[in-house]
């Protein structure tokens, strides 16, 4: 135990130590040089470190345990060395006294076992704790991504490949986790070992230690050179993985179409292209980063050879003792091992950081405008005013320009018009799925842009044009908009919307799990479920966007009645192509090319003989030119 103390003393007094820290600083530089070329990489690494260091106390504890464990492991061979000395002395004394001092030998060996046991406990404890730190960090990272998704504008989600986003959460986070788990503790341990062994070398022979030291910059230089190249490859590897995931996701989502349209071969060709790219980059990444280890080992061996030769010559010239050379060779061997290990761990880490970069890229994506305003608990009257609203998805192509109208509380507003006129867009604006370019939408006197989104949306129940159910039971799906609903309420909503009728015939009834993309129910049944969902949410404002387009007409008539009851005392927006379903609306807005061209009741509009009338008449003229 007095060894380390001596080392510390040397540490402060002898000049070589100064060199050590200089060189260590130099190491930072060599790592820094390539990093300048891909700033993101270094930043991602830093950010990853910051994420981990959220658990700073544990991290410090782990570090201390690693230090202690390394110290014990390094001192292990010394204790065994002592034991060998005892045996050696015993042999020298053989003819004199009683030979080997077994009592002392066994005490020493028992001590060695003690040291190894302690180091075992420390090493295990350290790895055990580290696993916790890593997994908690990954948990946080995944959670961050999930919350991020809810803050992204819809346009971002529409524009990006779903499979690629998924890949970031599963493949990339998984890769980060595995890299950290595998490499972090070994990296720390081997760095510490390098440091410890270096100290020992300086104690034995500063000159030879300097020879050994040349290894470090050489290694770092090589490593830096290789790493710089493999880094780019790792980044591409994970990017291609994401692309591939995107392609697979889409192909499986549209599986039936791919088949029936005979596009398997073409899809597989595209798959093969990306898959080959992935192979090429992964191969180069692995090869380049994999050769860091033999390269480091080579440098280590060069050093070993140099020491053997120089040491040998020095002993031959009498300026050094054989014992010292031997000890030195031992140390230089000990030095190479952690060095190569550190190198290969850096390589594993690189892949992890490449993935981290992709995750951070997602986390840094621009978010929708942050909430402003505070919730107001006043009862919703349901007056909605569009005040000079302009909106377009694409700045080049104006869609809605200077649109104004008022929907009075409790009225039903029907929106009709040719497809692509902007009907869905209009109600999406009420939901504040998109931000206006100009003008404002006012709900009960408050600009919706100054309300929290959740407040606005919780007042509105919506049946979207595209049906969507989630993977869960029918019961859960109906209760989606009202998780606290009782079983009776769910059943009542189901009865009113004719869901109950078909659920009855299912073997598991309301507990039937809707799984897979097709949900195991027919399109019309799906639509009924989404109506039931909105029904149960019991909102102050109702939006029905083509809510019954896939439902058969007999059921539709019945639903219409239920809807009529629901629409009473509620402001409702109803979009429909089957004009029969909106004839009783209080006001009908006829839209064309993003503008309201006519307003009025059914009777008024027919009398006006304008766009509405033409639309209305077309349903009777249609059959005349119908299918043969």
């Amino acid at each position, binding site marked *: 135990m007095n060894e380390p103390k001596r080392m510390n003393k040397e540490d402060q007094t002898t000049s070589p130590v100064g060199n050590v820290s200089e060189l260590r600083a130099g190491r930072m530089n060599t790592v820094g040089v390539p990093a300048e070329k891909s700033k993101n990489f270094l930043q991602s690494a830093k950010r990853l470190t910051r994420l981990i260091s959220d658990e700073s106390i544990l991290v410090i504890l782990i570090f201390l345990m690693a230090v202690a464990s390394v110290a014990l492991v390094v001192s292990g061979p010394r204790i065994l060395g002592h034991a060998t000395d005892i045996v050696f002395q015993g042999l020298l004394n053989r003819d004199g006294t009683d030979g080997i001092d077994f009592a002392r030998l066994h005490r020493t060996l028992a001590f060695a076992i003690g040291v190894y046991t302690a180091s075992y406990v420390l090493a295990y404890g350290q790895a055990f704790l580290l696993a916790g730190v890593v997994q908690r960090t990954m948990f946080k990272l995944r959670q961050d991504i999930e919350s991020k998704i809810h803050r992204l504008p819809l346009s971002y989600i529409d524009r990006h490949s779903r499979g690629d986003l998924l890949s970031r959460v599963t493949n990339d986070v998984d890769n980060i986790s595995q890299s950290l788990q595998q490499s972090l503790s070994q990296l720390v341990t081997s760095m510490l070992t390098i440091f410890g062994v270096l100290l020992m070398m300086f104690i034995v022979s500063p000159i030879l230690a300097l020879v050994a030291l040349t290894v470090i910059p050489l290694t770092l230089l090589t490593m830096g050179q290789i790493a710089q190249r493999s880094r780019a490859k790792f980044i591409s590897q994970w990017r291609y993985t994401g692309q591939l995931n995107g392609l697979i996701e889409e192909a499986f989502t549209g*599986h039936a179409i791919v088949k029936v349209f005979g596009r398997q071969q073409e899809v597989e060709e595209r798959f093969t292209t990306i898959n080959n790219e992935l192979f090429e980059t992964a191969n180069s990444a692995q090869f380049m980063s994999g050769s860091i280890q033999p390269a480091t080992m080579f440098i280590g061996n060069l050093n*070993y050879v140099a020491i053997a030769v120089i040491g040998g010559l020095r002993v031959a010239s009498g300026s050094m003792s054989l014992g010292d050379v031997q000890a030195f060779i031992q140390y230089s061997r000990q030095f190479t091992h952690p060095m190569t290990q550190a190198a290969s761990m850096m390589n594993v880490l690189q892949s992890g950081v490449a993935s981290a970069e992709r995750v951070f890229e997602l986390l840094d994506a621009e978010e929708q405008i942050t909430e402003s305003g505070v919730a107001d608990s006043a009862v919703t009257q349901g007056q909605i005013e569009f005040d000079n609203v302009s909106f377009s998805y694409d700045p080049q192509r104006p869609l809605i320009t200077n649109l104004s109208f008022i929907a009075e509380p409790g009225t039903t507003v029907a929106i009709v018009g040719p497809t692509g006129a902007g009907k869905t867009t209009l109600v999406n604006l009420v939901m504040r799925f998109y931000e206006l370019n100009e003008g404002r939408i006012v709900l009960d006197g408050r600009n919706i842009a100054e309300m929290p989104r959740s407040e606005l949306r919780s007042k509105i129940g919506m049946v979207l044009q595209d049906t969507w159910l989630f993977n869960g039971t029918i019961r859960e799906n109906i209760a989606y908009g009202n998780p606290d609903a009782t079983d009776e309420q769910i059943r009542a909503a189901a009865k009113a919307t004719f869901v109950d009728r078909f659920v009855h015939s299912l073997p598991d009834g309301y507990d039937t799990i809707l799984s897979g993309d097709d949900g195991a129910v027919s399109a019309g049944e799906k639509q009924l479920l989404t109506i039931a969902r909105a029904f149960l949410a019991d909102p102050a404002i109702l939006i029905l966007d083509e809510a019954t387009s896939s439902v*058969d007409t007999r059921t539709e008539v019945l639903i219409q009645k239920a809807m009529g009851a629901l629409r009473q005392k509620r402001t409702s927006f109803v979009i429909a192509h089957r004009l029969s379903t909106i004839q009783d609306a209080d006001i009908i807005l006829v839209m064309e090319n993003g503008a309201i061209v006519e307003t009025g009741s059914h009777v008024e509009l027919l009398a006006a003989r304008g766009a509405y009338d033409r639309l209305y008449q077309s349903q009777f003229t249609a059959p005349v030119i119908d299918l043969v």
Partner: protein
Amino acid sequence: MLLHLLQEKLRPYRHLLWIVVVFQAVQSLAGLYLPTLNARIIDRGITQGDTNFIWRVGGLMLLTTLVQVLLSIAAIYFGSRASMAFGRDTRSALFHQVNSFSSREVAHFGAPSLITRITNDVQQVQMLVLTTCTLLLAAPFTAIGGLVLALQQDVNLSWIIVIAIPLVMSILGTVVYKMVPTFRVMQVRIDRINEILREQLSGIRVVRAFVREPQEKVRFQQANQDVAQTALRGGRLMSLMFPTATFIVNVSCVAVVWFGSNRIAAGQMKLGPMVAFLTYLAQILMSVMMATFMAAIWPRAAVSAERIQEVLSTTSSVPIPTHPTPITQTRVDLELRNVDFEYPGAASPVLHNISFKVSAGETLAIIGSTGSGKTTLLNLVARLFDATSGAVLIDGVDITEVAPAELWSRIGLVPQKPYLFSGTVSSNLRYGKQDATEQEMWNALTIAQADSFVREMPGALEAVIAQGGTNVSGGQRQRLAIARALIRQPEIYLFDDSFSALDLSTDAKLRAALTPHLKDSVTLIVGQRVSTIRHANQILVLEDGLVVGLGNHEELRQSCPTYEEIVLSQALQEGDDL
């Protein structure tokens, strides 16, 4: 499972693997040779002061290490090639296999799980192969070399090795054994993460509309916690491996000194050999550590291999006939003969005893209430499923006897939920016909009443379409899906409620333009509105999977009460045009 997969998928690369084995062997022996040379420098060079000898042997050492590094790098080159190629081939095989599945198998695994299997699971096995090539293959040589050298020093002490190595192996084995179930759960939980997130992305508008972000967060958090927990359990088991292996190694070193000193005292052994024995023991144990590294990643790879094999060994429930019957006619007719169909796990059949016949140039309209089985019927014709009993015949040939590619090339399907792929308008139209010319595309778009809006989109035919077609309106999407089917000019058209998102005047124009286009084809058209199907040659009225009426409009009004009921319900709505 794992071995089977490796055997099969690595077979084409076995020559690479052999190169790796040989290179690793020579490389590790070179590594062992270095200390021997060094010993010579000490023994002869230093003790005899022979500087020439020191230089010579030093040169030899240099050469050895050079050989070693070159061989190792070459081994890594071939090793990473083989393992990455393994990954590539396995991914390809999986993707191909899933493409051959019918909808039933895809639903059975679930798309999210299939996605995980192709990327994440393959990655696990690929890593195992890579680590084996770069780390593990060198281990036996180092171990055996070390063992031989150790035995040369003292055979008597070798019992320590005999105990230590199996001990390490059995402990590692136990840990691996415990890790396997953990990782089996782990991969399933990754599937779940994939599933929830995919759902959130596809249903993002509903999630937002119903302000379900908090609940979604909880749902995801649950899945996330599950993954983190299993990963943690796995990680903790894994963290047991290295320290345990190191500990056993170290204790056996102590044992060597302990028992070695006894033998020395008894004069049976010298000190030198004992020290050498220690060195070689360390060497052997180094390779044990490498084996440990592999043991740490083995369990997950094994589980992943199981999951991969599961997909590869599943065959489509819509089998490809071994000797397909060709269809020669360009004008075909379609017949269903006593067709029954039942979804797996359903209580009762969805379709029962359906029979009809449609000749080329004729239209069969299918009408029936929600959930009566219309989509299912069209899916049977497209052979997305096979009938439980009965037969679907094209031109008199049972479609199970026809090569699926041949069948599908004759079908133009417009699904009820029009799904567009990310890309452009033209890439989506090319789904219908790969080599379609621009003219053909515009023709199809014109018939589908989609030409005017496509022309207005930035880039026209090259306008960007987002995944699922979310950046066009519902009606526009439907028309693009129709154009995609039209461009094929198929012999059989399947329109599944394909005009539901169209406004009445577009609907009317589309039908008018469509009619001449269908004159050589068999057309099955699912519709809800009597006014649009009344002129079909035959109308099939479906009720709970049973045919309750088949005939033309006039006949059915007389003979089929259900049809009459439908007609009346619409007459009520639309005034009394009927």
